[in-house]
């Protein structure tokens, strides 16, 4: 775990006079599950959007998947997957149509797509619903599908912005099974969450408050450092 896949140095992002990201510096290593925690409005989504190339940083040095964020944003996009807070597959297309659309955009051949599509539908138990409009599916199914579509092109890194918001505990557990599976296949996971039990599943966790990273370590070390029995307590102590 020494290969840096994301390296951020002195990242600053300002919106007018408001500083959303105040001098962030951190690295993410290849293959790890990196938890990016913080209270609402701490600046997590801003950072994710910058790393994905949706937003440009005000200053700082950033490298994602070996490419510079300023110069090679489009090359980065080939190597990442992204799942936003807002569900963002096409609700008026069917399950298969959504898969076809995004596979097409990433230039996946028809043959490969068909194989992976069949495998995916089976894994998610969506075979019967494959010709249904996504708009009619339960939220939990949608989230799992959105994740699967985000990693359909086997990206090096996948960014998940509160992927399990509003989902029941059982589905959340299933969702994390999918995350582990992707991580085992070598995909680096960059995930934000509000659920502290989920933070325990991460290899390393950073906790943001008011635009700054206050802590960054493994969950075990953080608990020791803050003398807390679980991540919940760690979080409350930092984000107070």
């Amino acid at each position, binding site marked *: 775990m020494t290969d840096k896949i994301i390296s951020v140095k002195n990242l600053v992002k300002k919106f007018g006079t408001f500083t959303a990201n105040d001098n962030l510096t951190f690295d993410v290593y290849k293959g790890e599950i990196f938890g990016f925690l913080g209270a609402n409005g701490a600046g997590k989504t801003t950072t994710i959007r910058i790393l994905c*190339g*949706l937003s*440009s940083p005000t200053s700082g040095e950033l490298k994602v998947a070996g490419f510079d964020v300023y110069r090679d*944003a*489009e090359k980065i996009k080939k190597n990442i997957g*992204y799942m936003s807070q807002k569900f*963002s597959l*096409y609700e008026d297309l069917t399950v298969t149509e959504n898969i076809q659309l*995004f596979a097409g*955009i990433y230039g996946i051949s028809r043959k490969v797509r068909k194989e992976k599509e069949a495998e995916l539908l089976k894994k998610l138990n969506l075979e019967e619903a494959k010709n249904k409009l996504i708009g009619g599916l339960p939220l939990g199914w949608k989230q799992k599908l959105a994740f699967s579509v985000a990693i359909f092109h086997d990206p090096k890194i996948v960014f998940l912005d509160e992927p399990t918001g509003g989902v029941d505990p059982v589905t959340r557990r299933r969702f994390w099974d999918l995350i582990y599976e992707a991580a085992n296949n070598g995909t680096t996971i960059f995930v934000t969450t509000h659920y502290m039990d989920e933070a325990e599943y991460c290899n390393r966790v950073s906790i943001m408050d008011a635009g700054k990273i206050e802590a960054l370590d493994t969950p075990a070390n953080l608990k020791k450092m803050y003398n807390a029995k679980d991540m919940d307590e760690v979080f409350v102590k930092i984000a107070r």
Partner: protein
Amino acid sequence: MLPMIFGIPLLQMLILVYAATFDMKKIDMVVVDKDLSATSRELIAKFEAIPFYNVTGTIFDVKSADEMLLKDEADIAMVFPNNMEKNLIRDNYAQIQLLVNAIDGNSAQLSFSYTANIIGEFNKNLIAEWKGIPKFAPPSQVKITESYWYNPELDYKWFMAPGILAILVTIVGMFLAGINLVREKEIGTIEQLNVSPIKKYQFIISKLVPFWLIGLFDLAFGLIIARLFFNLPIVGSIFLLFSFASVYLIGVLGLGLFLSAISESQQQVMFISYFFLIIFILMGGIFTPVESMPHWAQEVNRINPIFYFMRIMRMIVLKGSGFSDLIKEFLSLLSLGVLFLSLAIWKYKKTT
């Protein structure tokens, strides 16, 4: 979506073409007969026999006739003075007065000249004197024989149908393109596209082509309706018409995409599109000839795509103009298309 694509053209063509007409359908006439003679009765009977005229009644004082004009109960009042017939027989000369409701100058002109014509035919010795509010120059005494080219039956529907169709194609194209992109912003799917390696031009093309096809389809659909319902003759080449429409639509869709690229919500893009559409439509010459607009307005029309397309539609459909007659319009449409599309590509940003 589907009802929009079929419903809008159908309704617009059927309702607007019939409604937006300057044809005189009916003239309400009130008669002030102070003479009560055989001549006056004969002339009244003549008007009553014309289905075009609705003679609402005969009264005896000009004041009530004035009031009826004021209340819009009559379009025209015909006044026979005392002793008209007597004067006519004795002096071979008599006067009839026509009072015209000129709130709408156009139709006042028309109803006056129709009526004056009929009276003139009735008896060349009766000289009509007319008084309008406001006063017009008296009609010319030169006898003119007309022959109407390109629309020999002076069917207003033939003139309006291509114009309405031009507007329709514009509205459908501009709104669909505009709403579509901004809707993706609202529901968030645009983000999913923006994190993908999709190229700008690929994105714009994928947004353009479907609406381009829908626009052309609506044009074909509208032409069929016009053909079936109004018997619209299509004198020129249909191929040429669609070639022009193809170029035109690129500009319209480009403008729609540009507006949606700078808008954040559907309301906003609707509002801005509406603003441009109203100006483009009213200045484009559907109701009023562009030649009689002030000079500055004609200059503004240089960047009005509807102005060119309206001309093209009417010239190809009604006159059968060929490409060589329309080179100027073609080049203008082409440059506007390039301009609007470049603006759209320039303003669509994957990174904010």
